[in-house]
């Protein structure tokens, strides 16, 4: 469980200026799903799952994901961005328990 918030980001290594590149990222997170009791009623508690993922490139947002509990455990996301200059790709995850996880990858040009 201590792995929660561990992030892996993969950017292509052979990008050139002007290319549209695809970035994949993965975060270790339980993404708790709704529990029901024996009567089928929803157990009302604060489920821990990621609600928002923000991806930025050179400080500008390229993709924002709003999630629900219908998203898999250890969710993986992909998105595209237009590579202009080498720079950081940063992905931020926010969950319902106030956790905030960040990961950065450097986009370098071949």
């Amino acid at each position: 469980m201590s792995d929660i918030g561990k992030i892996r980001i993969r950017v292509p290594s052979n990008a050139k200026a002007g290319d549209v590149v695809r970035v994949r990222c993965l975060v270790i997170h339980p993404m708790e799903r709704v529990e029901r009791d024996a009567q089928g009623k929803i157990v009302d508690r604060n489920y821990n799952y990621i609600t928002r993922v923000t991806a930025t490139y050179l400080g500008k947002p390229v993709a924002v994901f709003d999630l629900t509990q219908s998203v898999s455990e250890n969710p993986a996301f992909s998105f595209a961005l237009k590579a202009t200059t080498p720079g950081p790709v940063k992905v931020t995850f926010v969950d319902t328990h106030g956790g905030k996880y960040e990961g950065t990858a450097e986009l370098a040009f071949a």
Partner: protein
Amino acid sequence: MAEALTRRSALGRLGAGVAVAVGALRNPAPAGAQGSSPAFGLQESVQDGLKRVFGGRPIKDGAAMIKLDIPPIAENGAVVPVNVEVTAPMTPASYVKSIWIVADKNRIPMVVKATLTPESGQAFVGVNIRLGETTDVRAVVEQSDGTLLMAKREVKVTVGGCGG
């Protein structure tokens, strides 16, 4: 010694309580529907969800423009990779504003909303989602001028992965 320990654990619990309270403040959602935004995370039917999010706006068939890449048979409903690609320009004048992924028979049908910017360069998103049972999966695309497009595909699920 024992006294110090209890005091410490009591403090720890207090800290955890504060953290939970802060989390609750950040997400002021009604009980049972703790979504990220009011338009999200509700348990509803897919018709209600589409109506709630898009109102009565017409949704055009976008099968020609939207490439929905999902395995036709998902053995494990807990992890179903969905990739959506839209062949549309991504310029500041006209771009794909958001992509919704909708799973018809999930209890929470509106699964993901992805918001894109012209900097994305290409309207492409991929997410791993859960599917409760064999269902249609739709992608609804909203363009910057407000046009809505939709494509859908059936996914057969062998083992459901959605407790909720």
